[in-house]
């Protein structure tokens, strides 16, 4: 079972342990990021979140398996395999796990295992020591069995880091559940596209909390915006993998260009190569305005729509699966929070679970809704 979920395992003496997705660096240990390109990479650095958890007295259980660099993909099988983090926590192999959930895989899968996934506001948790995938969206979150535990751990890892200038200035955070009642919104157009089981979970939850209906704007183009912006940044972030400074190097080369080309061709999986090529495609002179610039403009419109929504609601509730099983289309469910840098919590409710999203820096509202739900036996 360890081998199923862990890329590498450490001995722990207590059950006060944490796991890390294998794109979070531990000094002196392997960090493969699920890629052949980093199969032998021994990290000279340690992620700030690791230092903070160790200083708080927790022990490292191991590094959990991830899809290659945990990027959003269009491949058929991304949701068919259980995330290593969700597997490890659900099997009791560690107390909590940290993940970078740009793809939405942990948000989707945690509830099915009876777990919570807390995805904080972008800028809350340091990304120092995280192998970058989509820099404007990467944010470490917490997989946990107990919501109090999850927010307790978030309080440990959150806070300004001098080594990550994109963290908010606050040196530390202390999370406490906000008291209700709460104004909850339910997006009717998203619910029309939800699969039956997922929709039922949301509708039951929304019914008990008296949710009000609204239309989530730009929902139909969220996969495109998410994938275009992701690929552009992925292409940029993976240009460093050249077989020279670290990582995999091909044995098949006669000159420098061969070395680069064959290393990168052999070192990456097809989905990564597709994302890199699409990144170059959307950033090319011919396509930049129609795709990349357009997506950045829609991202602003989405952010303005979020501000308007959260003036009416404390949180919105969303399903975790669409009727259309295609991973590309399902990106839309996670893109709203990810593109806008908003906090969200996936909770185990009903047969499928659901996600709650709040305005930036309002994690305490999500905490309060979750606590109320647990207390009321929802």
């Amino acid at each position, binding site marked *: 079972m360890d081998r199923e979920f862990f890329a590498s395992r450490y001995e722990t003496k207590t059950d006060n342990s944490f796991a890390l997705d294998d794109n979070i660096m531990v000094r002196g240990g392997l960090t493969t990021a699920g890629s052949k390109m980093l199969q032998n*990479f*021994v990290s*000279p*650095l340690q992620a700030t979140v690791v230092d903070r958890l160790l200083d708080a007295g927790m022990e490292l259980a191991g590094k959990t398996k991830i899809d290659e660099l945990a990027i959003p993909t269009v491949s058929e099988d991304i949701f068919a395999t259980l995330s290593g983090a969700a597997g490890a926590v659900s099997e009791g192999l560690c107390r909590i796990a940290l993940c970078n959930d740009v793809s939405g895989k942990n948000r989707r899968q945690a509830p099915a295992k009876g777990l919570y996934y807390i995805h904080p506001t972008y800028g809350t948790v340091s990304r120092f020591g995280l192998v970058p995938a989509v820099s*404007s969206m990467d944010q470490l979150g917490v997989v946990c069995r107990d919501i109090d535990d999850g927010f307790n751990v978030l309080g440990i890892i959150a806070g300004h880091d*001098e080594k990550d*200038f*994109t*963290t908010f*200035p606050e040196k530390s955070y202390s999370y406490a559940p906000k008291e209700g009642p709460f104004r909850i919104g339910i997006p009717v157009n998203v619910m029309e596209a939800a699969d039956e089981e997922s929709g039922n979970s949301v509708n039951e939850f929304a019914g008990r909390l008296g949710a009000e209906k609204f239309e989530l704007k*730009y929902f*139909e*183009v969220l*996969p*495109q915006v998410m*994938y*275009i912006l992701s690929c552009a940044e992925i*292409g940029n972030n993976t*240009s460093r993998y*050249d077989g*020279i*400074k*670290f*990582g995999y*190097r091909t044995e098949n*080369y006669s*000159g*420098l*260009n061969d*070395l*680069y*080309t*064959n290393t*990168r*061709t052999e070192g990456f999986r*097809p989905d990564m*190569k*597709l994302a*890199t*090529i*699409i*990144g*170059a*495609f*959307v950033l090319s002179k011919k396509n930049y305005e*129609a*795709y990349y*610039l*357009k*997506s*950045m*403009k*829609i*991202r*602003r*419109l989405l*952010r303005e729509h979020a501000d308007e929504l959260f003036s009416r609601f404390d949180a919105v509730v969303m399903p975790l699966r669409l009727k259309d099983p295609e991973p*590309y289309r399902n990106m839309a469910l996670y893109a709203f929070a990810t593109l806008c*840098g908003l906090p969200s919590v996936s909770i185990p409710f009903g047969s499928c679970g659901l996600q709650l999203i709040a305005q*930036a820096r309002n994690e305490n509202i999500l905490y309060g809704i979750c606590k109320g739900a647990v207390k009321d036996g929802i």
Partner: protein
Amino acid sequence: MDLKTVMEYEAMVKFNLPGSEREWIAEKASMLEESFNELSKVDTDGVEPLVSVLNFNSALREDVSVRLVSRDEILANSPDQYDGYFQVPRTIE
């Protein structure tokens, strides 16, 4: 996206794909390109692009040189090194 165009982008990003992978990528990219064209339905006239969701000025640190890792630590992961430098194949004939 046809195979010739895929090969052009391959060269840009330093790939040399096997035939079957190139065909897969061409097929996926064509589907994606068709999907991307739906963006034109959204009116973005007069809208500024959003580069970052952060709405604060990033904190600056003191302009002091800080060494996080040593040269040896950086070189330790390199497949080929010589006398404290990364070693690469000959670039000049």
